[in-house]
Protein backbone atom coordinates (compact mmCIF):
# COMPACT_ATOMS: atom_id res chain seq x y z
CA UNK A 1 0.00 0.00 0.00
CA UNK A 2 1.29 3.43 -0.90
CA UNK A 3 1.92 5.82 1.96
CA UNK A 4 1.02 9.48 1.66
CA UNK A 5 2.21 12.20 4.00
CA UNK A 6 -0.16 14.97 5.06
CA UNK A 7 1.83 17.35 2.90
CA UNK A 8 1.47 15.13 -0.17
CA UNK A 9 -2.29 14.81 0.33
CA UNK A 10 -2.54 18.57 0.71
CA UNK A 11 -0.55 19.29 -2.46
CA UNK A 12 -2.48 16.81 -4.57
CA UNK A 13 -5.88 17.97 -3.34
CA UNK A 14 -4.83 21.54 -3.92
CA UNK A 15 -3.88 20.88 -7.52
CA UNK A 16 -7.19 19.18 -8.29
CA UNK A 17 -9.40 21.64 -6.44
CA UNK A 18 -7.92 24.46 -8.52
CA UNK A 19 -8.11 22.51 -11.76
CA UNK A 20 -10.26 23.59 -14.70
CA UNK A 21 -11.11 20.11 -15.99
CA UNK A 22 -12.72 21.48 -19.15
CA UNK A 23 -9.49 23.26 -20.04
CA UNK A 24 -6.78 20.89 -18.85
CA UNK A 25 -8.42 17.58 -19.84
CA UNK A 26 -8.69 18.43 -23.55
CA UNK A 27 -5.23 20.06 -23.60
CA UNK A 28 -3.54 17.02 -22.08
CA UNK A 29 -5.19 14.53 -24.43
CA UNK A 30 -4.56 16.68 -27.52
CA UNK A 31 -0.91 16.97 -26.56
CA UNK A 32 -0.69 13.19 -26.16
CA UNK A 33 -2.23 12.55 -29.59
CA UNK A 34 0.16 15.04 -31.25
CA UNK A 35 3.36 14.15 -29.43
CA UNK A 36 2.77 10.39 -29.46
CA UNK A 37 0.73 9.88 -32.65
CA UNK A 38 0.55 6.11 -32.24
CA UNK A 39 -1.88 6.73 -29.37
CA UNK A 40 -4.39 7.75 -32.03
CA UNK A 41 -4.92 4.06 -32.72
CA UNK A 42 -7.60 3.98 -30.04
CA UNK A 43 -9.63 6.82 -31.45
CA UNK A 44 -10.44 5.82 -35.01
CA UNK A 45 -14.12 6.59 -34.33
CA UNK A 46 -13.35 10.16 -33.31
CA UNK A 47 -13.26 11.57 -36.82
CA UNK A 48 -10.53 13.81 -38.20
CA UNK A 49 -7.20 13.40 -36.38
CA UNK A 50 -5.11 13.93 -39.50
CA UNK A 51 -3.17 16.97 -38.28
CA UNK A 52 -2.44 18.84 -35.04
CA UNK A 53 -4.93 21.50 -36.20
CA UNK A 54 -7.64 18.86 -36.70
CA UNK A 55 -6.88 17.34 -33.29
CA UNK A 56 -7.16 20.77 -31.63
CA UNK A 57 -10.60 21.32 -33.17
CA UNK A 58 -11.94 17.83 -32.59
CA UNK A 59 -14.88 17.94 -30.19
CA UNK A 60 -14.77 14.21 -29.40
CA UNK A 61 -11.14 14.51 -28.34
CA UNK A 62 -11.99 17.42 -26.08
CA UNK A 63 -14.91 15.58 -24.48
CA UNK A 64 -12.79 12.49 -23.95
CA UNK A 65 -10.03 14.56 -22.39
CA UNK A 66 -12.47 15.84 -19.79
CA UNK A 67 -13.73 12.32 -19.12
CA UNK A 68 -10.25 10.89 -18.65
CA UNK A 69 -9.21 13.69 -16.31
CA UNK A 70 -12.29 13.11 -14.16
CA UNK A 71 -11.19 9.48 -14.01
CA UNK A 72 -8.44 10.68 -11.68
CA UNK A 73 -11.08 11.83 -9.18
CA UNK A 74 -11.49 8.23 -8.10
CA UNK A 75 -7.90 8.08 -6.97
CA UNK A 76 -8.27 11.41 -5.22
CA UNK A 77 -11.21 10.10 -3.20
CA UNK A 78 -9.52 6.78 -2.39
CA UNK A 79 -5.88 7.63 -1.97
CA UNK A 80 -5.30 4.84 0.50
CA UNK A 81 -6.46 2.18 -1.88
CA UNK A 82 -5.86 3.33 -5.40
CA UNK A 83 -5.04 -0.18 -6.57
CA UNK A 84 -8.49 -1.58 -5.71
CA UNK A 85 -10.22 1.57 -6.91
CA UNK A 86 -9.03 0.99 -10.48
CA UNK A 87 -9.61 -2.76 -10.70
CA UNK A 88 -12.64 -2.42 -12.96
CA UNK A 89 -11.10 0.29 -15.13
CA UNK A 90 -7.94 -1.76 -15.47
CA UNK A 91 -9.91 -4.77 -16.68
CA UNK A 92 -11.84 -2.53 -19.07
CA UNK A 93 -8.67 -1.04 -20.57
CA UNK A 94 -7.08 -4.46 -20.91
CA UNK A 95 -9.88 -6.71 -22.09
CA UNK A 96 -12.25 -4.40 -23.88
CA UNK A 97 -10.21 -1.40 -25.01
CA UNK A 98 -6.89 -3.24 -25.51
CA UNK A 99 -4.80 -0.25 -24.51
CA UNK A 100 -1.05 -0.81 -24.10
CA UNK A 101 -0.38 0.26 -20.48
CA UNK A 102 2.57 2.31 -21.65
CA UNK A 103 -0.02 4.73 -23.00
CA UNK A 104 -1.07 5.56 -19.44
CA UNK A 105 2.49 6.63 -18.75
CA UNK A 106 2.75 8.88 -21.79
CA UNK A 107 -0.61 10.49 -21.08
CA UNK A 108 0.51 11.07 -17.49
CA UNK A 109 3.63 12.83 -18.82
CA UNK A 110 1.50 15.03 -21.07
CA UNK A 111 -0.79 15.86 -18.15
CA UNK A 112 2.23 16.83 -16.04
CA UNK A 113 3.47 19.14 -18.77
CA UNK A 114 0.01 20.67 -19.29
CA UNK A 115 -0.45 21.35 -15.59
CA UNK A 116 3.10 22.73 -15.36
CA UNK A 117 2.22 25.28 -18.05
CA UNK A 118 -0.92 26.25 -16.15
CA UNK A 119 0.66 26.47 -12.70
CA UNK A 120 3.89 28.12 -13.79
CA UNK A 121 6.48 28.66 -11.09
CA UNK A 122 4.17 27.30 -8.39
CA UNK A 123 4.72 23.88 -9.99
CA UNK A 124 7.97 23.54 -8.05
CA UNK A 125 10.30 20.53 -8.12
CA UNK A 126 8.73 19.32 -4.86
CA UNK A 127 5.21 19.72 -6.26
CA UNK A 128 6.22 17.90 -9.43
CA UNK A 129 7.63 15.03 -7.38
CA UNK A 130 4.37 14.66 -5.44
CA UNK A 131 2.17 14.97 -8.53
CA UNK A 132 4.21 12.44 -10.48
CA UNK A 133 4.12 10.04 -7.52
CA UNK A 134 0.32 10.27 -7.58
CA UNK A 135 0.13 9.70 -11.35
CA UNK A 136 2.63 6.85 -11.08
CA UNK A 137 0.40 5.05 -8.58
CA UNK A 138 -2.66 5.53 -10.80
CA UNK A 139 -0.78 4.35 -13.89
CA UNK A 140 0.41 1.28 -12.03
CA UNK A 141 -3.12 0.51 -10.78
CA UNK A 142 -4.52 0.81 -14.31
CA UNK A 143 -1.99 -1.71 -15.55
CA UNK A 144 -2.48 -4.10 -12.65
CA UNK A 145 -5.19 -6.35 -14.10
CA UNK A 146 -3.51 -7.04 -17.40
CA UNK A 147 -2.53 -10.63 -17.95
Amino acid at each position, binding site marked *: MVKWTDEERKVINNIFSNLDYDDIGPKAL*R*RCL*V*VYPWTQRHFSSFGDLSS*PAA*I*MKNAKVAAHGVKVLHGLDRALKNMDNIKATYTELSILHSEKLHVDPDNFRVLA*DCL*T*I*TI*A*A*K*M*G*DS*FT*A*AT*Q*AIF*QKFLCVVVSALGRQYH
Partner: protein
Amino acid sequence: MTTLTAKDKDAVRTFWAKVSGKEEDIGTDAVARMLAVYPQTKTYFAHWKDLSPSSPSARKHGITVMKGVADAVSKIDDLKGGLLTLSELHAFTLRVDPANFKILSHCLLVVLSIKFPNDFTPEAHVALDKFLAAVALALAEKYR
Protein backbone atom coordinates in the same frame (compact mmCIF):
# COMPACT_ATOMS: atom_id res chain seq x y z
CA MET B 1 11.87 7.24 -34.45
CA THR B 2 14.83 9.55 -34.42
CA THR B 3 15.09 10.91 -37.95
CA LEU B 4 14.55 14.63 -37.66
CA THR B 5 12.70 16.14 -40.60
CA ALA B 6 13.54 19.60 -41.90
CA LYS B 7 10.33 20.78 -40.20
CA ASP B 8 11.48 19.30 -36.87
CA LYS B 9 14.86 21.00 -37.13
CA ASP B 10 13.27 24.34 -37.95
CA ALA B 11 10.88 24.01 -35.02
CA VAL B 12 13.77 23.21 -32.66
CA ARG B 13 15.90 26.08 -33.91
CA THR B 14 12.99 28.54 -33.76
CA PHE B 15 12.09 27.50 -30.23
CA TRP B 16 15.72 27.53 -29.11
CA ALA B 17 16.07 31.14 -30.24
CA LYS B 18 13.49 32.00 -27.57
CA VAL B 19 15.48 30.10 -24.96
CA SER B 20 18.49 32.31 -25.57
CA GLY B 21 19.65 34.00 -22.40
CA LYS B 22 17.64 31.71 -20.10
CA GLU B 23 19.78 28.59 -20.53
CA GLU B 24 21.31 28.66 -17.06
CA ASP B 25 18.00 28.97 -15.25
CA ILE B 26 16.45 26.27 -17.40
CA GLY B 27 19.36 23.87 -16.95
CA THR B 28 19.56 24.28 -13.19
CA ASP B 29 15.78 23.89 -12.84
CA ALA B 30 15.77 20.73 -15.00
CA VAL B 31 18.52 19.06 -12.99
CA ALA B 32 16.90 20.10 -9.70
CA ARG B 33 13.65 18.49 -10.81
CA MET B 34 15.44 15.36 -11.98
CA LEU B 35 17.03 14.90 -8.55
CA ALA B 36 13.79 15.67 -6.71
CA VAL B 37 11.36 13.68 -8.84
CA TYR B 38 13.64 10.72 -9.67
CA PRO B 39 15.83 10.22 -6.60
CA GLN B 40 17.52 7.21 -8.19
CA THR B 41 19.40 9.67 -10.41
CA LYS B 42 21.28 10.87 -7.32
CA THR B 43 23.29 7.65 -7.47
CA TYR B 44 25.41 9.24 -10.18
CA PHE B 45 26.42 12.11 -7.95
CA ALA B 46 27.54 10.36 -4.78
CA HIS B 47 30.75 12.39 -5.03
CA TRP B 48 28.90 15.67 -4.40
CA LYS B 49 28.95 17.06 -0.87
CA ASP B 50 25.42 18.33 -1.22
CA LEU B 51 22.86 16.34 -3.21
CA SER B 52 19.95 18.67 -2.65
CA PRO B 53 18.27 19.95 -5.82
CA SER B 54 19.31 23.56 -5.13
CA SER B 55 22.93 22.83 -4.19
CA PRO B 56 25.82 24.64 -5.95
CA SER B 57 26.91 21.31 -7.49
CA ALA B 58 23.44 20.69 -8.90
CA ARG B 59 23.27 24.22 -10.29
CA LYS B 60 26.69 23.90 -11.90
CA HIS B 61 25.70 20.58 -13.41
CA GLY B 62 22.50 22.05 -14.81
CA ILE B 63 24.57 24.68 -16.59
CA THR B 64 26.95 22.07 -17.99
CA VAL B 65 24.11 19.91 -19.28
CA MET B 66 22.33 22.84 -20.85
CA LYS B 67 25.51 23.93 -22.65
CA GLY B 68 25.59 20.41 -24.09
CA VAL B 69 21.99 20.67 -25.28
CA ALA B 70 22.61 24.09 -26.83
CA ASP B 71 25.66 22.63 -28.57
CA ALA B 72 23.51 19.80 -29.89
CA VAL B 73 21.08 22.33 -31.37
CA SER B 74 23.95 23.89 -33.32
CA LYS B 75 24.97 20.42 -34.55
CA ILE B 76 21.44 19.28 -35.30
CA ASP B 77 22.37 18.24 -38.82
CA ASP B 78 24.89 15.68 -37.58
CA LEU B 79 24.28 14.76 -33.98
CA LYS B 80 26.25 11.49 -34.09
CA GLY B 81 29.35 13.21 -35.46
CA GLY B 82 28.95 16.39 -33.48
CA LEU B 83 28.45 14.66 -30.14
CA LEU B 84 31.15 12.00 -30.59
CA THR B 85 33.37 13.24 -27.76
CA LEU B 86 30.43 13.57 -25.40
CA SER B 87 29.33 10.10 -26.35
CA GLU B 88 32.74 8.69 -25.49
CA LEU B 89 32.63 10.52 -22.18
CA HIS B 90 29.20 9.08 -21.32
CA ALA B 91 30.14 5.60 -22.52
CA PHE B 92 33.53 5.06 -21.00
CA THR B 93 33.80 7.45 -18.09
CA LEU B 94 30.33 8.38 -16.86
CA ARG B 95 28.51 5.20 -17.87
CA VAL B 96 25.09 6.74 -17.32
CA ASP B 97 22.30 4.25 -17.99
CA PRO B 98 20.61 5.62 -21.13
CA ALA B 99 17.20 5.36 -19.44
CA ASN B 100 18.23 8.45 -17.53
CA PHE B 101 18.45 10.55 -20.68
CA LYS B 102 14.68 10.13 -21.03
CA ILE B 103 14.22 11.22 -17.45
CA LEU B 104 16.28 14.37 -17.87
CA SER B 105 14.57 15.13 -21.19
CA HIS B 106 11.17 14.95 -19.51
CA CYS B 107 12.30 17.32 -16.76
CA LEU B 108 13.67 19.70 -19.36
CA LEU B 109 10.35 19.68 -21.21
CA VAL B 110 8.48 20.42 -17.95
CA VAL B 111 10.71 23.46 -17.40
CA LEU B 112 10.16 24.66 -20.98
CA SER B 113 6.42 24.22 -20.48
CA ILE B 114 6.56 26.41 -17.37
CA LYS B 115 8.76 29.09 -18.90
CA PHE B 116 7.06 29.22 -22.29
CA PRO B 117 3.42 28.23 -21.68
CA ASN B 118 2.25 29.74 -24.96
CA ASP B 119 5.20 28.86 -27.21
CA PHE B 120 5.58 25.29 -26.01
CA THR B 121 2.69 24.12 -28.17
CA PRO B 122 2.06 20.43 -28.86
CA GLU B 123 3.83 20.92 -32.22
CA ALA B 124 6.90 22.44 -30.58
CA HIS B 125 6.75 19.72 -27.94
CA VAL B 126 6.86 16.86 -30.42
CA ALA B 127 9.79 18.41 -32.32
CA LEU B 128 11.75 18.95 -29.11
CA ASP B 129 10.89 15.50 -27.79
CA LYS B 130 12.18 13.96 -31.04
CA PHE B 131 15.28 16.14 -30.88
CA LEU B 132 16.10 15.18 -27.29
CA ALA B 133 15.55 11.52 -28.15
CA ALA B 134 17.99 11.91 -31.05
CA VAL B 135 20.52 13.57 -28.74
CA ALA B 136 20.12 10.71 -26.28
CA LEU B 137 20.71 8.21 -29.05
CA ALA B 138 23.82 10.07 -30.20
CA LEU B 139 25.10 10.12 -26.60
CA ALA B 140 24.58 6.37 -26.29
CA GLU B 141 26.27 5.72 -29.64
CA LYS B 142 29.56 4.55 -28.17
CA TYR B 143 28.08 2.49 -25.33
CA ARG B 144 28.42 -0.88 -27.02
